[in-house]
């Protein structure tokens, strides 16, 4: 990744950035998020099929750079969340320097060899392997084999189920939730200073990991991400209980597309879907 390192070095040397968020290998050769604070640090930068993390999450979590902007290494899908953060007024376009990377898919299971079978499902539908928005672009596009979408059949099955069957399906899933909030912590768009689940006066969502409280938690989180989730699937990847959270996000994403023809995080100048309204919004369900 000479290109990536060269650009990063240049950004430090010209004092344009305070730090750059990217990926580096740890001593076990695992690719992990890594923040470079100096030109020397950037030599550790890597980018490959194991660069799964959506680093945009750090844009609202790390303290602002003392001097200069924040540099960020980002895949096309991650850039969607950067655009979403700009649309939602959480960061300014001028405060970030986006080093976009041409992406050749990422793994589904880390610690396993990259292959067609071990490719993240989101990569199957990816329209932004060459990012749509960036300041610098590095890397080369290669031919890749796309994975099966094993969730498609599950979505179809869910759609054909009765309410009770669906409830039972999700009861079995949500029962496993341990309320670790990894899904929230890893989500670039869950930046609330106080999350509703942490509010205790009044307590809206049971904080103990009961199935009832888990239902409320997962429903409310999916609702808060409705029309906002950009489908990076980090929440599902982080979930230790292996709850198929992407199904919920996928459903809500389909509502945004079908009802409003809206895709969040595609255009920095587009007004957000949630937080705005149209007097002609559909209301055939209102008496």
């Amino acid at each position: 990744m000479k290109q990536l390192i060269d650009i990063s070095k240049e950004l430090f040397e010209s004092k344009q950035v305070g730090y750059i968020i990217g990926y580096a290998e740890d001593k076990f050769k695992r690719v992990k998020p890594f923040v470079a604070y100096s030109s020397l640090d950037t030599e550790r930068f890597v980018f490959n099929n194991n660069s799964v993390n959506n680093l945009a999450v750090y844009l609202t979590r790390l303290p602002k750079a003392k001097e200069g902007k924040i540099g960020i290494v980002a895949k096309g899908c991650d850039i969607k969340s950067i655009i979403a953060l700009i649309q939602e007024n959480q960061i300014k376009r001028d405060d970030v320097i986006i080093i976009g990377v041409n992406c050749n898919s990422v793994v589904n299971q880390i610690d396993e060899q990259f292959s067609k079978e071990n490719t993240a499902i989101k990569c199957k539908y990816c329209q932004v392997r060459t990012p749509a928005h960036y300041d610098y672009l590095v890397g080369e596009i290669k031919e890749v084999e796309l994975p099966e979408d094993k969730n498609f059949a599950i979505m179809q099955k869910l759609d054909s189920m009765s309410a009770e069957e669906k409830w039972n399906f999700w009861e079995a899933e949500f029962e496993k939730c341990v309320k670790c909030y990894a899904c929230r912590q890893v989500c670039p768009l869950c930046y609330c200073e106080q999350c509703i689940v942490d509010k205790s006066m009044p307590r809206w969502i049971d904080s103990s990991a009961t199935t009832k409280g888990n239902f409320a938690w997962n429903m409310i989180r999916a609702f808060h991400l409705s029309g906002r989730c950009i489908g990076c699937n980090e929440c599902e990847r982080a979930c230790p209980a292996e709850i198929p959270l992407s199904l919920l996000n996928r459903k809500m994403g389909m509502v945004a597309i079908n009802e409003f023809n809206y895709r969040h995080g595609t255009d920095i100048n587009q007004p957000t879907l949630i937080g705005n309204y149209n007097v002609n919004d559909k209301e055939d369900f209102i008496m």
Partner: protein
Amino acid sequence: MENEKFEPKIVAFVCNWCTYTGADLAGTSRLKQQTNARLIRVPCTGRIDPVFIIKAFEKGADGVLVSGCHPNDCHYNTGNFHARRRWIFFRQLLDFVGIDSSRLYFSWVSASEGKKWVDVVDGVINSVREKGPFNGYKKLNKEIEIPVK
């Protein structure tokens, strides 16, 4: 239990400025209505966080009604427009996780529509009575009951 007639429990979230006043009018005009609905008055439909609706179902509601000012009549101008957009998502989310969204009703009832309020409430109660009780949460609530010695 078997032959006991099912009486639905309905929670109605109504905005202060239109529907609540409309319901009040129904009362002062002595219009007859069924009494299964518990009204919860909120400033505006825009104040109705969907978590309220989940809470109502958790606490044993068989149906929930949400009602406020007609479009363009919101006391805060845009509260009901914002709310309406959120409901489009929320209804489909409920359906997706197995809470039949037809147990969640919406209406616009103005301060002068006492008669419409009675029709809406009666309609909702009858329709939920027909659907029967909502059992999803009943089982989950048992999970956390503290056994009494």
